[in-house]
C-alpha cells in the first residue's frame, strides 16, 4: 500500500444531492434532449444519488456512475480513466456506468486531453478519488455495524463483515458515507493487487457508437436551434473587405447574414487561441442544406492583409508577434528554407568541440530532409453548439482543453466565468486540431447576434482550408566519422515555417562527444498548431532515417548501432538536459529486435526506427513490398514502453492506429499553398490512408514494468515515418528525404 495525502479534509467537498425530476447531472441528459430514439430509452435517471469525491455518484440501488474528467477524442480515456477510480473503489466494473464530466475544471482538477498526458496526470488523483470513496464507505459500514474498518472487506461494490456474515451494498452506505469527514490520508493498492487495471477492457461507449446513437457535437439538437456556417478568406494573407448578403437572405430558410469579428481589437492571445482569420461572414438558417446553398450566393470582396502585430501571452510572458502580409506559396517556402539552411542559425546546444571533430573527420555524411504542412482532417469537421442568453452561455463543444478557452470566452463574448456552461461532446477525432477552440467563440458570437441556439458547422472544405496546420519543416544532419568508423561529431541544423523543428536535447544528443544543434524559423501568416506529436513527428523521421544511413555507412546493423549509441548515453552521457532514459530506449529496441526475429532474418524489405517523446518509448520494424511501383506495407512489429499498461486492449488499438496514421501521413500527407490558397480542399484532393493500403498485420508488444503509466496517443506515431522510409530503401535502393514519400519514390 502506498499512502497518499488527499490534500483536503473539508467536509464540504462532499455533497449529497437529491434529484427531483430535473435530471440535472444525469448521464447523457443532454443527449436525451436530442431526439426520440428507442435506443436511449433504456438510459433512465436514478431516483437519488450521492456524490463522493467529485468523481463518483451512487444511487441507493447501487448504481454506480464514474465521471470521466478528460474530453474524449478517441484515445479511450472514457474507459481507462474510470478504470483507475473503479480499481481503488473496489467496484464491480461490469456494472459501472461512465459519464463524461461537464466542463468543471475546479472540480475535476484536470480536464486535459493532449500531449499524451491524460494517463499520467490522472494516475494518482483518480486512484485517490476511488480509494477515498472506498474508505468512506468502509467507515460508514463500520459505524453502522459498530465494528472496526479493519474487520471489513470492500469488493465488487459491496462491503462485508466476515465475522458476522453481513454484507451491504455501496448504495445503501452512500448517504451515510457522504456525511463523514474525508480521510486525510488514503492507501492506494499495490500494482500486484490490481484486479481491473492491467486487464483488457472494451470501450465503454462501444455500444452507443455501433448503434449510431447521438454522441458528437454535430448530432446535438435542441428546440429552436439554427444552423450556422462561416465564410472565410480564400487565401492566407487575405481578409474581408465587404460583403453583400441580400440575395442569400432571400433564400428559403435563411435567417441572417452578417459579419463577425472573432477576437476583439487588442485581445491578448493565449497559446491555444490561434485562429486563421479574424473577420468572417456568418450565414444562419434553418437547415444545413439551405445554409450550404445560401453561402454560395453571398457576394464577398476580399483584400490583401497587411502585416500586423498581435499581443500573445506565452510561457515567457506577453510578447508582440508579427504576422506578415503577403501570399505565400509552397515552392517559395522550400526556397526560403533552403536559404536559411545556408545561414548561421541560433545555437540551441553544443557539447565538446564539433568544429575540430569535423576538421579531423575521415568521412562526413550529410543529408537534408523536408516535410510539408499537414492538415489534421478529423473525421468530424469542426463544429460547436452555442446558446447565449442573459442567464448563461451554454455550449456543446468538442474541445481538448476546455479550461484554456475560459479567458477567451470571457474576453471576446463578454461573459462572466460563472455563466459558462459547457458540455464536452465526444470528438470525432482531433489529432491536435481541437486544442484550438476559436470556433467556440465564433459560435458564441453568432448565437448572441441571432438570439437563438445555433450549431456552427464547418464544411469539410472549411475545415481543411481554414486550418491550424502542422508546420512545414527542413533539417540537415551531418556526422563526422573517424578512421575507426566511429561517429565523432553530429551537427543538426534545421527549422520550419513558422516554427523551428529541432528537439536539441533528444537522442542522439547525449550519445555523441561533439554535438551542436542550431535552429531557425521563418514567420508566416499560415496558422499552425499541435499535430499528433508536434515537431517530433518530423524530427524523428529525419533523425531515424539519418541514423539508418549512418549505420550503413559505417557498416553496422541499424538496431545494434542505435543500441551502441544508447549504451554510451546510459553509461557516460554527454552534456546536460538529455530528455530520455537510455535504458528504456534500449528496452524497446531490444524487444522489437526479438519480436521481429530481426537477427534471424535477412531483413530484405524491412526497416527499423525508434523514438522517445511524450514520456513513452516506441520502436517499429516495418516490412514493405512494391507492386507495380506502388509501396505496400505488409507487416509491422512494434514495441512500446509506456510504463504500466492500464488497459491493454485500448492501448493496442491506439498503437495500431498510430502506425496506420503514420504510414498514411508519411506516404501521402501534405497541404500545398499557391499564392496563399490551400490547394487541397476536400478528401478527394487530400489523400488519407485507406483499407487497401493498411498493413495486413500490426503486432504490438509492451515492455512489462510497473513505472507510472504514460501516454500512447502520440509516442508510437513519430517513428513510423522513418521505419517506413528505411524499409522502402531496402526494397527499392532509394533513400527518401522529402515527404510525402510516395511522391519522391515515384519521381523518375
Amino acid at each position, binding site marked *: 500500500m502506498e499512502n497518499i495525502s488527499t490534500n483536503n479534509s473539508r467536509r464540504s467537498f462532499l455533497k449529497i444531492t437529491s434529484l427531483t425530476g430535473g435530471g440535472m447531472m444525469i448521464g447523457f441528459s443532454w443527449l436525451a434532449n*436530442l*431526439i*426520440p*430514439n*428507442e*435506443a436511449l430509452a433504456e438510459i433512465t435517471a436514478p431516483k437519488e444519488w450521492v456524490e463522493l469525491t467529485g468523481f463518483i455518484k451512487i444511487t441507493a440501488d447501487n448504481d454506480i456512475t464514474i465521471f470521466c474528467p478528460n474530453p474524449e*477524442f*478517441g484515445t479511450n480515456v472514457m474507459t481507462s480513466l474510470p478504470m483507475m477510480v473503479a480499481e481503488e473503489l473496489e467496484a464491480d466494473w461490469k456494472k459501472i456506468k461512465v459519464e463524461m464530466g461537464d466542463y468543471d475544471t475546479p472540480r475535476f482538477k484536470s480536464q486535459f486531453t493532449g500531449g499524451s498526458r491524460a494517463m499520467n496526470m490522472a494516475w494518482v488523483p483518480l486512484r485517490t478519488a476511488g480509494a477515498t470513496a472506498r474508505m468512506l464507505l468502509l467507515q460508514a459500514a463500520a459505524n453502522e455495524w459498530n465494528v472496526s474498518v479493519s474487520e471489513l472487506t470492500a469488493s465488487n461494490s459491496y462491503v462485508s463483515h466476515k465475522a458476522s456474515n453481513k454484507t451491504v451494498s455501496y448504495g445503501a452506505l452512500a448517504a451515510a458515507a457522504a456525511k463523514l469527514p474525508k480521510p486525510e490520508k488514503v492507501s492506494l493498492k499495490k500494482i500486484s493487487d490490481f484486479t481491473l487495471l492491467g486487464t483488457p477492457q*472494451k*470501450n465503454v*461507449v*462501444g*455500444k452507443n*457508437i*455501433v*448503434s*449510431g446513437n*447521438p*454522441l458528437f457535437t*454535430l448530432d446535438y439538437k435542441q428546440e429552436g436551434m439554427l444552423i450556422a456556417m462561416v465564410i472565410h478568406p480564400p487565401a492566407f494573407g487575405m481578409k474581408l473587405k465587404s460583403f453583400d448578403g441580400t440575395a442569400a437572405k432571400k433564400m*428559403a430558410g435563411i435567417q441572417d447574414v452578417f459579419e463577425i469579428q472573432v477576437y476583439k481589437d487588442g485581445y491578448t492571445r493565449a497559446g491555444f487561441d490561434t485562429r486563421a482569420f479574424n473577420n468572417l461572414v456568418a450565414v444562419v438558417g434553418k*437547415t*444545413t*442544406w439551405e445554409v450550404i*446553398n445560401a453561402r454560395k450566393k453571398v457576394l464577398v470582396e476580399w483584400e490583401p492583409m497587411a502585416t500586423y502585430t498581435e499581443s500573445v501571452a506565452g510561457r515567457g510572458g506577453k510578447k508582440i508577434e508579427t504576422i506578415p502580409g503577403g501570399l505565400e506559396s509552397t515552392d517559395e517556402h522550400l526556397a526560403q528554407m533552403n536559404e536559411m539552411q545556408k545561414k548561421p542559425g541560433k545555437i540551441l546546444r553544443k557539447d565538446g568541440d564539433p568544429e575540430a571533430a569535423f576538421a579531423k573527420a575521415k568521412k562526413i555524411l550529410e543529408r537534408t530532409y523536408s516535410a510539408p504542412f499537414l492538415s489534421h482532417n*478529423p*473525421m*468530424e*469537421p469542426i463544429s460547436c453548439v452555442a446558446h447565449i442568453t442573459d442567464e448563461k452561455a451554454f455550449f456543446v463543444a468538442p474541445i481538448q482543453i476546455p479550461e484554456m478557452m475560459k479567458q477567451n470566452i470571457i474576453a471576446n463574448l463578454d461573459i462572466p466565468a460563472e455563466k459558462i456552461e459547457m458540455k464536452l461532446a*465526444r*470528438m*470525432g*477525432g482531433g*489529432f491536435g486540431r481541437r486544442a484550438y477552440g476559436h470556433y467556440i467563440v465564433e459560435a458564441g458570437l453568432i448565437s448572441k447576434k441571432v438570439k437563438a441556439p445555433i450549431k456552427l458547422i464547418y*464544411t*469539410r*472544405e472549411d475545415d481543411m482550408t481554414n486550418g491550424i496546420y502542422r508546420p512545414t519543416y527542413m533539417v540537415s544532419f551531418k556526422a563526422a566519422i573517424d578512421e575507426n568508423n566511429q561517429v565523432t561529431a553530429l551537427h543538426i541544423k534545421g527549422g520550419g515555417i513558422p516554427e523551428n523543428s529541432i528537439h536539441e536535447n533528444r537522442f542522439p544528443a547525449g550519445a555523441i562527444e561533439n554535438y551542436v544543434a542550431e535552429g531557425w524559423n521563418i514567420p508566416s501568416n499560415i496558422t499552425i498548431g499541435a499535430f499528433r506529436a508536434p515537431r517530433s513527428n518530423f524530427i524523428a523521421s529525419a533523425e531515424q532515417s539519418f541514423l539508418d544511413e549512418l549505420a550503413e555507412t559505417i557498416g553496422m546493423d541499424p538496431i545494434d548501432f542505435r543500441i551502441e549509441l544508447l549504451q554510451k548515453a546510459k553509461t557516460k552521457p554527454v552534456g546536460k538536459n538529455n530528455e530520455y532514459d537510455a535504458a528504456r530506449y534500449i528496452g524497446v529496441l531490444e524487444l522489437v529486435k526479438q519480436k521481429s526475429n530481426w537477427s534471424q532474418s535477412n531483413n530484405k524489405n524491412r526497416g527499423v526506427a525508434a523514438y522517445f517523446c511524450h514520456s513513452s518509448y516506441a520502436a517499429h520494424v516495418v516490412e514493405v513490398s512494391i507492386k507495380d511501383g506502388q509501396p505496400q506495407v505488409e507487416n509491422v512489429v512494434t514495441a512500446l514502453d509506456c510504463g504500466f499498461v492500464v488497459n491493454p*486492449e485500448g492501448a493496442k*488499438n*491506439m498503437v*495500431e*492506429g*498510430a*502506425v*496506420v*496514421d503514420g504510414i*498514411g501521413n508519411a506516404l501521402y500527407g501534405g497541404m500545398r499553398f499557391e499564392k496563399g490558397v490551400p490547394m487541397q480542399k*476536400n*478528401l*478527394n484532393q487530400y489523400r*488519407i*490512408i*485507406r*483499407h*487497401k493500403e*493498411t*498493413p*495486413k*498485420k*500490426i503486432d504490438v508488444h509492451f515492455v512489462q514494468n510497473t513505472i507510472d503509466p504514460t501516454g500512447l496517443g502520440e509516442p508510437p506515431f513519430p517513428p513510423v515515418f522513418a521505419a517506413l522510409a528505411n524499409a522502402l530503401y531496402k526494397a527499392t535502393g532509394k533513400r527518401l528525404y522529402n515527404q510525402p514519400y510516395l511522391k519522391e519514390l515515384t519521381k523518375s
Partner: protein
Amino acid sequence: MAKYKLKVNGKMMEAEVDPTTPVLWVLRDHLNLVGTKYGCGVGSCGACTIHLNGKAMKSCQLPIAAVAAQEITTIEGLSESGEHPVQKAWLSLDVAQCGYCQTGQIMAASALLKSKPHPTDEEIETAMNGNICRCGTYVRIKQAIQSAAKNAHQ
C-alpha cells in the same frame, strides 16, 4: 420545396425539402436520424453510408428526388438494438477509437456481407476502400468483418 414520402428503416416518413437536398441532410436535419454522419460531402469518405434497397450508398451524393420508392436503411434501422452480427463483431473486436466513421463502416460492411457472405481479404479491402477511418482502425475493421462472416454462418 416539395413533399417527399420515404421508406426509412421500414417506416414511411415525410420531409418537405428542396429536391436537390442530399438524403444525408434529410436524415440528419429532418428525420432526426443522426447515426448517418457528414464527413466530406463529396462522396470520398463514406461516413454517410446507408443502404438503398439493401446496397451500400453514399447518402451525401443521393438527392432526395432520386429516391422515390426505394427503401432506405440507416444504422438506426440495421438492427433493433445494435444486435446485427456486424455490430456485435465490432464490439467484440473493440474496433472504435473516436467512433465517428464507424456507423458508415458498419453499413458498408453489412451490405458487403449481404451480397458476399464469405468475402476474401481482397474483396473486403475493395468493398471498404471508400470508407476512411482517420484513427486508422482498419486492421480491426477487417477482422470484425471476417468474424461477422464466420459467426453469421455457423
